[in-house]
C-alpha cells in the first residue's frame, strides 16, 4: 500500500531523511519509532505529499506521489502531530467540509461521522465551534476526519498525544478494524509499549537513516522494544 524507495530529503545542508526504504502492505499496522528530530515527521509528510523530496520515490497503492499526487491523496489520510483545525467552524461543519473534499456520499458520511463521533464521545460537542475545543477534543475530531472516508492508507504522526485513555483505546480498536478491512496504518510514536502491543511491523529511524525494520517479533527478539531501541540508538551515536 505504501512503498518508500531510497527517500532522501534535505533542509538546506541538513539531511533529514537519508536513503530510506520501507514497504507497508495492506492490512498492516506499521509503527515508526525514533528520537526527536530523527526524521519521522519528514518521512510521513513526504509520504502524504505534503513535502517535496530530493531523491527516491514514494508509491501509494502503486501510484507515484510525485507523478500523481491527487490520486494518491484520494487513497490516504494524514494526521499531523498537533492538528490545527479551522477554529472558526463548528466541529460538524469541519467534518462536512472534509467529507465534501473526499466526495463522500450523504448516507455514508452521515453513518461514519456519527459512528466515529459516538465512539470518541464528542457527538454532543459537534455544534460547538472548534475554538472552544480542548486539545484532546481537537485530536478526536481530526481522527474522525482521518478515518471517516475509509482511506486505504492512514498516516498518523504521534496520534496518541492528548488523548485520554478511553479515546486512546478506542483509536487502537479503530486502527485494527480499518486494517481488517484491508487498509494500512503507518504511525509514528514515542510510546514504545503501544508500538510493541499494537504493531505488526516496526521501523526504527535515527539521524534520518533506517536502522531496523521488520515484524515486531523480529525487531524485538528476546528483549523488550525499549532495550532494543536504546541499544540501537547507542550504537548509532
Amino acid at each position, binding site marked *: 500500500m505504501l512503498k518508500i524507495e531510497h527517500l532522501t530529503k534535505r533542509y538546506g545542508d541538513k539531511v533529514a531523511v537519508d536513503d530510506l526504504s520501507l514497504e507497508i502492505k495492506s492490512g498492516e499496522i506499521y509503527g515508526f519509532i525514533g528520537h526527536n528530530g530523527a526524521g519521522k515527521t519528514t518521512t510521513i509528510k513526504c509520504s502524504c505529499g505534503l513535502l517535496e523530496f530530493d531523491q527516491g520515490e514514494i508509491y501509494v497503492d502503486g501510484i507515484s506521489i510525485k507523478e500523481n499526487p491527487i490520486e494518491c491523496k484520494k487513497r490516504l489520510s494524514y494526521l499531523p502531530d498537533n492538528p490545527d483545525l479551522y477554529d472558526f467552524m463548528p466541529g460538524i461543519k469541519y467534518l462536512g*467540509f472534509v467529507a*465534501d473534499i473526499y466526495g463522500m456520499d450523504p448516507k455514508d458520511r452521515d453513518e461514519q461521522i456519527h459512528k466515529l463521533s459516538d465512539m470518541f464521545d464528542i457527538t454532543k460537542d459537534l455544534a460547538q465551534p472548534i475554538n472552544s475545543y480542548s486539545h484532546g477534543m481537537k485530536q478526536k475530531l481530526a481522527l474522525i476526519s482521518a478515518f471517516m472516508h475509509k482511506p486505504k492508507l492512514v498516516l498518523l504522526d504521534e496520534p496518541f498525544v492528548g488523548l485520554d485513555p478511553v479515546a486512546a483505546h478506542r483509536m487502537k480498536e479503530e486502527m485494527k478494524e480499518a486494517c481488517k478491512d484491508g487498509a494500512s496504518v503507518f504511525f509514528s510514536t514515542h510510546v514504545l509499549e503501544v508500538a510493541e502491543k499494537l504493531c505488526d511491523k516496526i521501523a526504527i529511524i535515527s539521524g534520518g537513516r533506517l536502522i531496523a525494520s521488520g515484524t515486531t517479533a523480529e525487531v524485538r527478539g528476546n528483549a523488550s522494544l525499549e532495550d532494543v531501541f536504546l541499544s540501537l540508538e547507542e550504537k548509532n551515536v
Partner: protein
Amino acid sequence: MSKTVFELVKIKIIGDISSMISFMRGRSSKGRGFNIGTALIIGVILIAFGFMMVFSFGMAMVLGFQMGSEGCGWLYFPMAFVTSGAFSFIGTVFAAQSYLYDAKDNELLLSMPIKPFDVMMSRMIALYLLNFVYTNLLFIPVGVANGLLFGYNVITFINFIISALMIPMLVTALASIIGYLLGKLAKLIPNKNLMTVILGFATVGLLSLVIVNFGNIIEVLMNEISRVADWTAGHLHILFWYGLATSTEHSLKALFPGIIPILALTAAVSAGVAAFLSRHFTAIVTRKTAMKKKKYVRKPLRRTNIQLALIKKEVGYFLSLPSYVMNAGMSTIMAILLGVGILLRGSVISEWLPTFFPDASTNLLGLAIGSSLALSCTLNDVTAPTVSLEGRTIWILKSTPLDPMKVFFAKALLAPIVCLPGVCFTSAASAIVLDLRVIDVLFIVFIPVLACMFSGFLGVCVNLKLPRFDWTNEITVIKQSLSVIFTLLLSMFFTAIPFTLAIIPSAYLEDFSSLWAYGICIAYFLALVLLELFFLATEGKKIWKELG
C-alpha cells in the same frame, strides 16, 4: 519600579518592532526585493506620519492666528490638549485590550515569580509609549506653531514639555479602564463579531463624516472662536487655567492654578486605574467566560461540490474575523456610498458631466460610474492574506486530494463575493435614477465584477509570492503584511489605466463610441485575469507545493 518592569517593557517593544518588520517582509528576509518592499512600507508610514504632522501644523497656524487676533490665544493649548488626547484615545482604546488583557504571554508571566503589578505596569508603560507617539504626532507640530505665533518663555516651554508627557499618561489610564469595560461589555453581547463590525463601521462612518465636513467645522470654529472661548472659560475652569498657564501673557500668574490641578488630575486618574487594575489583574486576565453550549441535533448532512465547499470555507473564515471584515469591507461601503450619492444627487451628476466634457460624442455616465465603482472595488484587499491565513492549518488543504487551482479560485472569488452587494446596489440605483441604456447598466455591473476578479486573483498571486505562516494573531497578516500593501497599490494602479485610456478619447473624440470604451476596459481586464490564471497554473502551483 522594579528592574523587571523595564525588562518586560524592553521585551515587548523589541518584540513588537521585530514582528512588525518581519511581517512587512515576505517569506524570507534575504534578497534585494524584500529590502525594497520593507523600505517601501517604511516610506509609506513616514509619509503618513509626515502628512499628519504637516496637517496638524497647518491647522494650528490657522486656528492659532484666529485665536490670537480675537484675543483668546489662551484657548490654543487647551484645544490642542483635547484634540491630540482624543486622537490618541481613539487610536489606542482597542490596543489597550490586546496590550493589557489579551496578551498571549500574560499567563506565562503570571506563573513565574513576577509580581502581577510588575506585569501590569510593563503593559501600561508600553501602552504609554504608543500613546506618546500618537499624541505627539499632533502635539509637537502644535508646539512649533505656537512658537511661531505666540513665542515661548521659560514657563510656557516647560508647560509644553509637561503637557507632551502628561497627555499620553492620562490617555493611557483612560484607555486601560475603558478597554477593560469594553472587554466586560463584549462578553455580555451574544453576537460579538457582528457587534464589533457594526461599531467599527459606525466609527469609520463618523470619522468619514468629520473628514467630509472638516472645512465646515473649521469655518464654524473660526467664526465662533470667541464664543467657544467664553464657554470654556465659564464651564471648564481647569482647561481655562491650563490655557492661561500655557500662554506667555499670564503664564506666571496662572502657573500653579493652571498646571497643578491638571497634573493632579492626571496623577489621580493614573494611580486610581493602576491601583484598581493591579488588584484585579490576575483575575481579569485569567477569567474564562462560560460559553453557552449549542446543542447538537442530528440531521442529514448535505453534500456540496468541492469548489463550493472551498468557497464556503473562505467566506466562513472571512466572516469570523471582524478586523478582516472591516479591512476588506471598505470597498463595499465605498460602493454603497456611491450608490447613495447617485440616488440623492443623480440628476446633478448627469447634468454636470456634459458641461465638463462638452465635446463628448457619447453618454459618459456609464463609463464614469462603472470606472468609479471598479476603482472603489480595488480597495478590496480581501484575498491578499488568504494564503498566509492558512497558517498552521495548511496541512488540511495540502494533504487532501485537491487541485491547487480549485483552492486558488475559492480564495480569489472572495473578492467579487464581498464587493457584489455594493455593485448591485449602485447598479440598481444608477438604472433607476439615471437615464441609462441597457448596455450601460450591463457595463456598470460587469466591469466592477471583472475588476474584482482581477484584484482577487492578484491578491492570491502576490500572497503566494509573499506568504507568512509564523503569525500568532490573524490581524498581523490582514493589516501589516507586505502582500496586502502590494496588492492594494498594484490593483489600484492597474485598474486606473484602462479607464484613463477609455475616458480621454470618449470625452474628446467626436466619433468615439462608448461601446469602444467598454470594449477596451473589458478586454483589458480579461487579459489581466488570463495572465494571472496562467501564473497560478504554472508558478503558483509550484509555490503551493513548497508551502507549509
